């Protein structure tokens, strides 16, 4: 029985593997394909070889880590040294194929009506008629001028003529046909009613890797993702190409990009610290209140206080954006009525940051409250009894018993919360979109942009359009920073070790 289940399981896994693999092949994602194949092979080996059996618990984790963590990192590194972005989306083969298939309609040339026949072998024959009544027969890329009573006509009459419906169904076959009309012109299908004379625009020389403009003889050489002419102009579209450290040079070499980067970085740190700090303080305070056994209706309060956590952040953030509106928001209306002045919440760099902290406090304190509540339960009441006997004040109890014991279990969560807020894109994006803008920045950057929202705007809203290359470079920098922060955090707070000791 066990064997059947195992076999069936492996079968299903293999089906999934093969299905994905074929899809990847179709999408020409060869690197992922190879990785997947290796994964599949390993899976089968481990399940079929008794000696490798213990590894089966490790395998899925390792596999998904490679696929979902390692591969994206490697890919990001790769993108960061390319020019991938608007104007350079396609790969070189695709771009060359596009140029090779560009034809210009010969202006003022005659249009040829056509009839199409299929011979018993299934091959196509065309009878072209120009506007003066001259006729040509086209077959297999070659044209024959017809004289009167040409035997070819009789031959054609013996074949099946395609009706209009047949023609429509065969458009792909028809449009792939071309006939050399003279040295430069090709007769190609223009639409369902006519063939016309076309000139090929470019030809690609595979040996020399250059693109030749057929009519002018200009030679375009590939350079930095574009086919460039000797005079410096280039053809569009460009293609994806490795540009080395160009993106990093842009990031660190240009003060108009570096400037916002540094200020964005500083605010990101402030933001992450303040987010964790404020939510933790408020959450802990409420948790201690709710933990008081003499408090009536504790459960009601607890449920009510968890509500902000239960409402989707997207909805809350948008509501808060309305509340913070300078002229019409309720917060300013109240301020206006009570203290007689209002605050430019979303317009002033400082107040926009305050608004973000307030919103994040609203969204985040229930989480901190919940984890603190849990942690408080685990502190034994005997300690407090002993403290009371020794004459400790409430503050001393909190300072020397509650906080240290709480930190044991909460500290790792605070660190992960820091990392989370470091990349808390949605709150920033929903409330301020990173605004107000930083004056003079060459990249789209705002005073409340954190690194991740800055990256997003670089990638999708930059001056160039989409700029994946530069965005990947920034992503890598962010990755190094968060990686370092997290490492030192765990290392020097000893958070993980403490957990291990206590668990």
């Amino acid at each position, binding site marked *: 029985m066990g064997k059947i289940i195992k076999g069936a399981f492996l*079968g299903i896994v293999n*089906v999934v593997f093969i299905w994905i693999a074929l899809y990847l092949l179709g999408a020409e994602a060869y690197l992922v394909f190879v990785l997947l194949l290796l994964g599949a092979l390993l899976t089968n080996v481990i399940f*079929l070889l008794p000696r490798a059996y213990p590894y089966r618990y490790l395998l899925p984790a390792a596999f998904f880590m490679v696929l979902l963590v390692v591969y994206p990192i490697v890919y990001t590194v790769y993108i960061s040294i390319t020019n991938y972005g608007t104007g350079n989306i396609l790969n070189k083969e695709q771009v060359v194929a596009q140029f090779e298939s560009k034809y210009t309609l010969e202006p003022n040339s005659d249009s040829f009506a056509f009839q199409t026949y299929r011979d018993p072998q299934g091959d196509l024959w065309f009878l072209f008629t120009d506007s003066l009544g001259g006729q040509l027969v086209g077959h297999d890329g070659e044209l024959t001028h017809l004289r009167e009573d040409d035997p070819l006509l009789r031959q054609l009459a013996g074949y099946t003529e395609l009706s209009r419906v047949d023609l429509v169904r065969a458009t792909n076959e*028809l449009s792939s046909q071309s006939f050399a009309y003279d040295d430069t012109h090709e007769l190609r299908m223009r639409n369902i009613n006519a063939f016309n004379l076309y000139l090929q625009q470019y030809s690609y020389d595979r040996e020399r890797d250059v693109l030749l403009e057929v009519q002018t003889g200009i030679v375009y050489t590939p350079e930095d993702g574009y086919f460039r002419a000797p005079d410096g102009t280039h053809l569009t579209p460009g293609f994806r190409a490795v540009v080395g450290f160009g993106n990093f040079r842009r990031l660190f070499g240009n003060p108009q990009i570096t400037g916002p980067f540094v200020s964005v970085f500083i605010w990101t740190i402030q933001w992450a610290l303040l987010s964790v700090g404020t939510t933790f303080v408020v959450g802990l305070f409420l948790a201690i209140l709710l933990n008081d056994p003499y408090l009536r209706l504790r459960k009601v309060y607890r449920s009510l206080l968890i509500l902000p956590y239960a409402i989707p952040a997207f909805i809350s953030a948008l509501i808060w954006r*309305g509340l913070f509106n300078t002229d019409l928001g309720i917060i300013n209306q109240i301020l206006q009525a009570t203290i007689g002045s209002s605050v430019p919440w979303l317009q002033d760099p400082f107040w926009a940051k305050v608004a973000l902290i307030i919103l994040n406090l609203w969204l985040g304190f229930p989480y901190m409250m919940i984890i603190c509540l849990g942690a408080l339960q685990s502190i034994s009441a005997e300690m407090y009894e002993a403290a009371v006997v020794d004459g400790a004040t409430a503050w001393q109890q909190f300072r020397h018993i509650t906080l240290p014991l709480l930190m044991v279990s909460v500290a790792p969560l605070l660190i992960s919360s820091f990392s989370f807020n470091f990349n808390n894109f949605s709150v920033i994006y929903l409330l301020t979109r990173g605004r107000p803008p930083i004056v*003079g920045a060459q990249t789209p950057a705002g005073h409340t942009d954190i690194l991740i929202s800055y990256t997003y705007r670089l990638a999708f809203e930059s001056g160039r359009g989409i700029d994946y290359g530069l965005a990947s470079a920034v992503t890598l920098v962010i990755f190094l920073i968060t990686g370092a922060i997290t490492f030192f955090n765990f290392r020097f707070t000893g958070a993980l070790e403490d957990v291990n000791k206590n668990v």
Partner: protein
Amino acid sequence: MKRVTTMLVVLVLALSISLPVMASVPGELLIWSDGERAPILNEVAKQFVIEYGVTVRIQELPFGDIRDNLAIVAPTGEGPDLIVGAHDWLGQLVTDGLIDPIDVDDESLFLESGLEAFTWGGQRYGIPYAIEAIGLIYNKDLAGEDGFQSFEEMIELGTKLRDEGKYALVMPQPDPYHTFPFFSILGGYVFGMDADGVLDPLDVGLANDGAVEGFELFEYLMDERIMARATPYDTMMSLFQNGNAAGMITGPWAFNDVRSAGIDYGFQQIPSYKGQYGRPFLGAQGFMMSAFSENKMLANLFLNEFVATKDTMLAIYEGDPRPTAFLPAADIINEDPDMRGVMESAAEGIPMPAIPAMNAVWTAWSDALELVINQQSAPRPAIENAVQLIIQTIEDSGY
């Protein structure tokens, strides 16, 4: 041994299941459409099957996602043959090499400006079904039956409305698209034309004297509380729906919301200032063809024979009323006063530049607007700085 047999069976099974998924489908059309157009295209698709026995599949996507998804999916060969889209995508899609020109059989069927909007380097890249331009929706109870002739008139009314806590004007802010009439009113422009009538990306006219004067009018209206400050689209709409604003700069997409609020409204072109009219951007929507389509001839045929027809165009209009770019349907559609208003506004319109350099313009321009809206900068330095950045960005990216 048994195990191996099981695995082989499974393998064969898997292969037979997955192969059809992979196969691309020449001889069958796939159209990416937004939700408004999809049901109409589905009907047209049925006729196409009846007539030629060729399947047309419609895949529904949010309008705004179509362009970005095309850039991701089309190069892998999984993309559509045709897409529905806006003309201002053209610059990006053409420079990316994602769309191909379309052979329009009979150009006389279309509004010239609609076709022009889909033209790039002398080639037509789209068949337009609608054109649009922003204008002024006015509340007849506040602004009178005929709306506003001029901004001078609006300022006069605004000073009275101000005391009631109402505004003479609301508009989405910061939003360069909707603010452009202020720049164009006294002679500002985005890109100048060179002698050949080709847009010159290094001639940016957003900070010339006329543009700055118009921008100063924009600031003045906010400073005097004639226009509400820093209103995003939804706030703007609720001000107008609650009767707290006499005029709203917006486009045909706002009609339904205004109508549902029970406001007695009219639509007019942007009022004049110092005797000159503010000219909005002219936009167009249409069908474009993927450069990776394996059925280009078929797609052309579908557009020319089945989409560019009076019936289809009227159906598209009824599904989502916008002024049509298809002349045989124009007479019927222009009977609607709203549509006539938009057409009149569009007649004054300037086609929104669709060159890729436009990407560099939007962000910097929007930031300049925001600085002025937030009272952190005067109009002239804000827009002059923005133009400098725009030109720098354009030069850097080597357009």
